[in-house]
């Protein structure tokens, strides 16, 4: 092994060794990401169910999708979810991060407590909130609808239910995302604030001119993560509404699930999957453009 003098100059160039190290990951990646990814685009043009075979149907699935009013409803619901969830998933964790990165005694306890919702599975989160807002026994329902007289419909009316479920999503993610923001805040060099305060920029002005621009890389990552999560929201819909009442809280992912496992068409579900991909690519591209035009001040 040691007698490889001619190779010493380019000692790290070792394609065979590299491929052995990469083999397990590459195999798994190929089998469960790459092949399925390509396969989706084949399925889009097919019709069939899990039990019977598939036949080529051309663009039928896409045409049917465009005419399917339930599909447009799922798009609308998903959009509502995104519009509520994405901004709040930035604003709330960022505010909390600003709060919990102040160095006062006991802050570590607060940080731990705030992380608790992120430790819960969505299944448990959904159950907890369903208990809280149950019209018969829920303490939160009693508080808002009997004591305060607000008559919130909670899960009984479609759009309100989507918004409410999105809020619970924010609750369940705020621990995780505020820790990410906190790490970003801690990376901002202290002297910047000192320099700024000499120039008279403190408080909100320092936040706007220093914190926000320097937080941009973290912001981008969180933005992409929460958007991808929002586009394919499923777990919480499953636990809290099951798409109901009626079909009023169907989201795209829920509809895909219904098609595959409610005995619907696989190709139809694949077509929706592709559409979700296109939507998320458009949104990602939009984010990239927006953040690029302002110029990068960091790194």
């Amino acid at each position, binding site marked *: *092994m*040691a007698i490889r003098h001619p190779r010493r100059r380019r000692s*790290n*160039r070792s*394609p065979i*060794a590299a*491929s052995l190290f*990469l083999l*397990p*990951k590459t195999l798994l*990646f190929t*089998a*469960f*990401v790459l*092949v399925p990814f390509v*396969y*989706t685009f084949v*399925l889009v043009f097919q019709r069939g169910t*899990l039990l019977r075979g598939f036949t080529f149907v051309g663009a039928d699935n896409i045409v049917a999708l465009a005419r399917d009013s339930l599909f447009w409803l799922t798009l609308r619901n998903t959009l509502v979810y995104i519009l509520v969830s994405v901004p709040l998933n930035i604003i709330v964790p960022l505010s909390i991060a600003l*709060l919990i*990165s*102040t*160095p*006062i005694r*006991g802050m570590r306890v607060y*940080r731990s407590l*705030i*992380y*608790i919702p992120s*430790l*819960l*599975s*969505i*299944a*448990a989160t959904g*159950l907890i909130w369903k*208990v809280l807002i149950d019209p*018969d026994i*829920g303490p939160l329902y009693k508080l808002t609808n009997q004591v305060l007289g607000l008559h919130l419909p909670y899960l009984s009316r479609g759009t309100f239910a989507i918004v409410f479920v999105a809020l619970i999503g924010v*609750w369940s993610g705020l621990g995780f995302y505020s*820790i990410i923001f906190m*790490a970003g*805040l801690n990376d901002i060099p*202290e002297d910047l604030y000192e320099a700024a305060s000499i120039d008279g920029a*403190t*408080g909100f002005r*320092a936040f706007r001119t220093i914190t926000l621009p320097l937080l941009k*890389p*973290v912001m*981008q990552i969180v933005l*992409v993560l929460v958007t991808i999560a929002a586009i*394919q929201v499923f777990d919480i819909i499953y636990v809290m509404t099951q798409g109901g009442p009626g079909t009023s809280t169907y989201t*795209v*992912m829920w509809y895909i*699930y219904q098609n595959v*496992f409610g005995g619907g068409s*696989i190709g139809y579900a694949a077509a929706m*999957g592709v559409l*979700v991909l296109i939507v998320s690519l458009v949104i990602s591209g939009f984010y990239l453009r927006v953040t690029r035009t302002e110029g990068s001040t*960091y790194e």
Partner: protein
Amino acid sequence: MSSTKVLPVSTTSVAQAGDRSPNPRLVRQRVTTHVLAILVSAVCTAPVLIVLIASLKPLSSFSSLSLTSGGWTLHNYTKLLTGDQLPRWVFNSLVVCVAVTALTVVIDLLAGFAFAKLKFRGRGVLFLLFISTLMLPFSITLVPTYLLVARYGMVDTYLGLILPLLSGPLGVYLMRQFIKGIPDALLEAARIDGASLPRIFLQIVAPLCAQPVAVLTVFTFVSTWNTFLWPLLIAQSDSMKTLTVGIATSNLQFEQDLGSTTAQAILSLVPMLILFVAFQRFFLRGITAGAFKG
């Protein structure tokens, strides 16, 4: 632990000497911070606490959830833990979590090392291909992955539950970033001493990676424990369900047994809570430090 970057007002010299100074503005600021932090903590924990209390009450179906009366009982928990369903689900979750976590760490450490320290054609492209799937919605591959897994007869098996969860890109990224920081000279010295690549990997690189391995372990374990959609599709018989799937599918009509439902929600939190308390620094620092730097 952290510094005063956040409230720039307090970064002046007053804050440095501020521990005992009676500066009223500073005191007011500190009190405000405490009050706000307590409020946020309450919003985060109160729902869990209420459900915890409900789970410790002897409630029958459709009774009102009163938190103050009725005495305390562990009945809801003992009933669940001595039944056959819940322990089975916990067992399944543990099998899947341990397998996925252990395999992910090994596989991603190997791949991360190759991407960080070995030169080969197509390295950049392959890495980019891996990483770009961080932004790939699962919905696009869900249907065909299910079809493939079904074709290989892996529906309702542990293999079917575990294998697709090993294809995520995060661990490779995390490991590569860390291993890149290990000086080349160290590896070169070992090579000159006659160490083979596998030995360099096992005896030098792997031991240095304790920190990112811990981070990836905690992160993978938690996200696997909580993962829902994939096991929902694959675990079709009751005895193959993981805990989250079991809880979600059996409690859609929770009014029938509120005590059982609330106890299940709390029970599913317990392992994560233990992990969190034991490895808190990896949760609160590690996850972000390595994985999420732009």
